[in-house]
Structures are given as C-alpha cells and as structure tokens.
C-alpha cells in the first residue's frame, strides 16, 4: 500500500473530531440494526435485498442479549430497520426492552403497522423516534419504486403519528433521478405532519445495484441537491450521506467522513456485523454477535474494522484539490459499482466518477439475497395454468372416483 498523503498514521492528541473518528471509537455512535429480512414491500432499490425472513434470524432472547450488550457498551441509541422491522411479532417488545435499558430507538418503517393505536403508544414512549420511508412526493413517483399503495400507507402512518401527538417524526427520502425535482414538496409533506425531512443518497447496494444506472441523480441533479441542501440544510437531516457533494465547495453540515467501521456499523437480522448499512456483502463482514466475545469483540477487535481504522489509501484522489472535502466519497458506492476503493466515488462531482465508470469494471456478485423473487422454484407461488383446449361442453365431467372403469369412454 502506498501512503495516503493526508491521513495521519497514529491517533493524534486533540485535533479535529474527524481526525479522531478516523481511528475509531470504543463503541459505535450510530449503529443500524436490521431486525428482519421479511418485508411486505419489495422496493426496487432495497439496500438489504429484503423480502423473505431468514430462518436463522436472531430470536427474541438473542436480541435482548444484544440490547444488554449495547447498554454495557453505552451505545445510546440504535437505528432499527429491516426488512420491515414492525412485521416481527416481538418488535414492540424489543422496542420497549431497548428503551428500558437506556438504548434509545429510531426505527425505519414503511408505515404498514403504524395504526392509531400504535401511534398513540409511540407518542407516549420517550427515547423513540420514527422514520417513515417515502421516495416520491406523489403516489406516482413513490409507488414506481416502492410498490402500489405504499404512498398511501406512508401518508396514513404520518397522519396517525401527527394526530396522536407524536412529535417530530422523520420523513426519510432516498433522492433519485425521479424525485429530485420534488424536494420542496417533500419538505411541505414533512412540515404538514409536524415531521422533519431526512434526505439520503441512493446507494447501489442490494437490489439498488440493479436500478442504480436508471435512478441515480444525473450530474446536473447533484448540483440541484447540493444547492437545495445549502439553502435548507439546517432544517433537514441527511445522515451525513451527501459528503461526496462537499467537493462542490462548501462542506455540508455534519461529518464529512466515511464512518464505516469507525463510528457506524450494521448488525443484520442473523447477527452478522457489517462495516456499514450500505455494505451488506461478505467483503465487509466483520463477524457475528453470536461469536465468542459478542458484538463488543467484533467492534473493537475484528480484523476488518481494525483495517478500516488504519490509514487508508486514496490513490489518485489525494491529488485532487477537493480531497479534504470529500475524502474519496462512499466506499459502498464504489464497491457495488465495481470501482476501485482507492479511486473516485461514482458520483464524484468533479467528474472523475464518470470517467471511472466508463472504464473496465467488475460489479461484485451479491453475497446474499432475501428477495421474494429469489425463492427456490419449488417454494414459488404456482401460477394458474390455463388450458388452451376448450372442454367439450356436451361430455359429462369425468370424476376420478367414478365407479365404472369405462366412465368417460365413448367409442
């Protein structure tokens, strides 16, 4: 490995927070925990290729043990997702269990189970935050990627939460080529429901790899997102997901840093620990919470995370005047588009991404897939077979248990 020019080799004393975060923390700040791969929807860009439950998913007791460990490690809150986490029968129990153990919960949902009763429960529970996914400000745009009826489901959930007095729900939007012109409308939907808008970047992860070419914002749209965030950034959350746009000039609010394995990670439904929520692939698998030593050992000692916290090589990017602003962009975006990790982000706003995408590249094969369409043939629904031959309306129906062996025989 050649030296990354601007990355120090050892943890500095003092210095900026970003400098400190590059060397990792004793526990994650922002931990995503996907509780199930089961989902009632089949969004085309699903990061985790969800659909079917995995038979190895952690049991209630195993989930409680993970929460106990997070409490001991002082992980103050987790982002729970899936799949659709609320379809797990023990979801509401685990939510309460986490809150009772000083682990605050923010969960992402498509809204399917957020009826009036659950909205009232959520409004009365401290340390709980709800994030409703919505990828179009109109049903037409949303349902194209999230499926028929999903817009109405999300809006109903937002209405239920607002009516129940739930304060400050989040409306979480993946910005795509199709909805980038709706940013003001998304903001209005959030405002109308007493909610906060959260925008995130479309990642080519999971099924997202299949639709990224069609849906990822065009270069001129990247500029629109940047300008919109600069104008509205203080009232909009981004999960720091647009740090690649910092190379347009001014840094956006938040950490302009890839936090994978340093300050963030993902626990998947079977307990596998990945470097970040956008990197569900064996290449970024650090261990499993059921391993000896549990999550803490994976976080603090795994080979992968240790490597991610050591000085990184950023190749040609280090020569770019904007390297300090974007630091080479998103590792997952590069990996799943088949670009080298030490090169530019595929959406590099200085144009280096397009050049890289035009060259030779090998997209990685997914290492897991829980999409319903990936069911083995024998488990797929049997399509009704339509007979092309018209039955003879005169002939009497032949019953299998007709007594006469000559039944139906007309010489």
């Amino acid at each position, binding site marked *: 490995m050649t030296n990354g020019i601007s990355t120090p080799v050892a943890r500095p004393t*003092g210095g900026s927070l970003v400098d400190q975060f590059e*060397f990792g923390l004793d526990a994650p700040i922002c931990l995503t925990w996907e509780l199930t791969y089961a989902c009632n929807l089949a969004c085309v860009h699903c990061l985790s290729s969800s659909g079917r439950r995995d038979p190895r998913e952690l049991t209630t007791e195993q989930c409680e043990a993970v929460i106990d460990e997070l409490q001991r490690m*002082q992980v*103050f809150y987790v982002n729970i997702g899936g799949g659709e986490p609320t379809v797990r029968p023990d979801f509401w129990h685990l939510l309460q269990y986490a809150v009772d153990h000083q682990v605050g919960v923010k969960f992402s949902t498509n809204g399917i189970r957020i009826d009036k009763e659950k909205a009232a429960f959520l409004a009365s529970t401290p340390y709980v935050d709800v994030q409703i996914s919505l990828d179009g400000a109109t049903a037409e745009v949303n349902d194209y990627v999230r499926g028929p009826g999903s817009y109405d489901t999300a809006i109903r959930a937002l209405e239920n939460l607002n009516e129940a007095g739930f304060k400050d729900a989040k409306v979480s939007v993946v910005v795509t080529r199709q909805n980038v012109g709706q940013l003001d409308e998304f903001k209005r939907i959030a405002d109308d429901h007493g909610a906060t808008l959260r925008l995130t970047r479309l990642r080519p992860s999971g099924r997202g790899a299949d639709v990224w070419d069609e849906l990822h914002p065009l270069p001129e749209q990247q500029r629109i997102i940047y300008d919109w965030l600069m104008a509205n950034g203080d009232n909009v959350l981004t999960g720091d997901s647009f740090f690649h746009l910092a190379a347009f000039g001014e840094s956006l609010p938040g950490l302009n840093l890839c936090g994978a394995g340093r300050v963030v990670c993902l626990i998947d439904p079977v307990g596998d620990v990945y470097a970040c929520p956008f990197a569900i692939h064996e290449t970024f698998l650090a261990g499993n919470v059921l391993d000896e030593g549990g999550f803490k050992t994976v976080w603090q000692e795994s080979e992968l995370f240790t490597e991610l916290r050591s000085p990184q090589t950023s190749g040609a990017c280090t020569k770019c005047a904007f390297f300090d602003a974007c630091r080479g962009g998103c590792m997952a975006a590069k990996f799943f588009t088949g670009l080298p990790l030490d090169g530019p982000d595929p959406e590099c706003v200085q144009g280096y991404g397009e050049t890289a995408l035009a060259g030779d590249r090998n997209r990685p094969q997914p290492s897991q897939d829980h999409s319903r369409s990936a069911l083995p043939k024998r488990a797929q629904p049997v399509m009704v077979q339509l007979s092309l031959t018209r039955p003879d309306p005169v002939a009497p129906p032949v019953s299998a248990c007709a007594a006469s062996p000559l039944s139906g025989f007309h010489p």
Partner: protein
Amino acid sequence: MKMTSTDTMLDEGWVLSPAVALRPEPFGAMAYHFGNRKLTFLKRPDLVRVIRSLEDSPTVRDALVQSGVPEAQWPAYVGALRSLAATDMIRASEGKNND
C-alpha cells in the same frame, strides 16, 4: 463568556445532569443527553476528569483543584462548563434532586 460569570461559577456546585451519560473514548469522552438527544464530544481528557470530579466537589473550584488544573487555565475550563450548562449537560447542584 463574561468574567463575572466565571467568578460566580467557581464558587457554585455543579453536577452532571441526571439525564446525561458519559462514555469514555480514546480522545476523552462522549456525553449523551437522553432527554434532548444531544451528543457532545469532550476532546480533552482533563475536562472529562473535571466533570467527573464535580460529583464529589462542593464547588467548581474544588473540582478544578482536585483535578490538578493550573489556576491560569480556570477561565477556559469555566467557559467549557458554561457551554455544557447551556445544553443541560451539567446542572447547578441545587437542581440535583428535583429531576
């Protein structure tokens, strides 16, 4: 930060807010407020030591002395404590028992 407030704070008792947890980190500590969900990074281990010693110190001055902070640096530390007070990370200790 006004110098007068520096002086008054030195003789006051302050404690970590009951809604706040401190998590040790290699660079110092992270403070998380369960109520307002604010996350604050304390990048100086010396400051973390002072905050931890507030609990057993009747006044901020005692905590600074106990933590071995030279007197010349007290205004800087009081400034840091004031900004922590502004987000309810620490509270005046008379409020200690009415959470």
